[in-house]
C-alpha cells in the first residue's frame, strides 16, 4: 500500500477584534503527515521602556494588512519545507496578558517549522500595516516601529481598481 501525497492545507489568515482562538489555529495546521507544529504567541506585556503599561490599542490598514499577511503565509511555502500556516492578529483594545498575534506552522520535520514561524513573525513586524498605541497612567504614545522597505521605482505601477 502506498501513501497518497498529502494535500496542502489552505493557509488561514485572520485580522479581527475578537479574541484569537489559538487552539483552532493549531488544529487547522496539524495534519497526520506533520511531525511538528511550532507556534508563536505574541502577548501584551505590562511594561514598555520602564513604564507600566495599562493596555494597548491596535489599529490597521485592514484591506492592505490582510493581503500582506496572506503574502507572508504564501512566502513561507516557497522558503521552507512546511505544511500549514495560520496567522491571526487582533485589533482594538487589548488588556495585559492577552494574545495580540498568534502564528502556527506545521511541517513534517521541526526545523522547517521553527524557521518558518520565526520568519513569519519577523516579517509581519516589518511589513504588515498595523500600529500599536501604548496607554500609560500619564498618557499614551504610538509605539516605535519599523519602516517597511519600499519597492524600487518602476514606471509600470498597478492601476486603480
Amino acid at each position, binding site marked *: 500500500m502506498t501513501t497518497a501525497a498529502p494535500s496542502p492545507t489552505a493557509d488561514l489568515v485572520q485580522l479581527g477584534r475578537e479574541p484569537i482562538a489559538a487552539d483552532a489555529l493549531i488544529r487547522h495546521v496539524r495534519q497526520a503527515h506533520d511531525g511538528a507544529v511550532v507556534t508563536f504567541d505574541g502577548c501584551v506585556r505590562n511594561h514598555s521602556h520602564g513604564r507600566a503599561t495599562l493596555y494597548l490599542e491596535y489599529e490597521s490598514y485592514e484591506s492592505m494588512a490582510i493581503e500582506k499577511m496572506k503574502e507572508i503565509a504564501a512566502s513561507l511555502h516557497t522558503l521552507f519545507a512546511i505544511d500549514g500556516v495560520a496567522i491571526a492578529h487582533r485589533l482594538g483594545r487589548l488588556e495585559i496578558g492577552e494574545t495580540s498575534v498568534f502564528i502556527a506552522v506545521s511541517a513534517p520535520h521541526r526545523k522547517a517549522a521553527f524557521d518558518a514561524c520565526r520568519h513569519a513573525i519577523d516579517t509581519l513586524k516589518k511589513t504588515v500595516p*498595523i500600529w500599536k498605541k501604548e496607554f500609560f497612567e500619564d498618557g499614551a504614545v504610538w509605539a516605535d516601529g519599523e519602516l*517597511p522597505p*519600499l519597492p524600487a521605482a518602476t514606471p509600470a505601477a498597478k492601476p486603480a481598481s
Partner: protein
Amino acid sequence: MQARVLFFGKLKDIAGSAERCVEFRSGETISELFERCASQKPELAPFRSSVVASRNQEFAPWTAVLESGDEVAFLPPVSGG
C-alpha cells in the same frame, strides 16, 4: 484628478483625520501628493522622511505617478505583533 488619501497611526493624529480627498494634476507623483497634504497641514512636513507610502494597497516608491481614483496611504513605521 483626485486621490483618496489615508493616514494611519501617529500621522492620523497629526493630519487631524483618517482620510481626505486631494486634487492633483496629471503626471504628479506620490511625493508631490504628500507635499500637497503638507501644504494644507504643515505639521505633516517633518514626517516625509519617516513614513512610507502605499498606492492601491501596495507599498509604492515616492516617484510613482498617480492616476485618478488612486488610494494612497501614508504609513508611519509599523508596530504590529
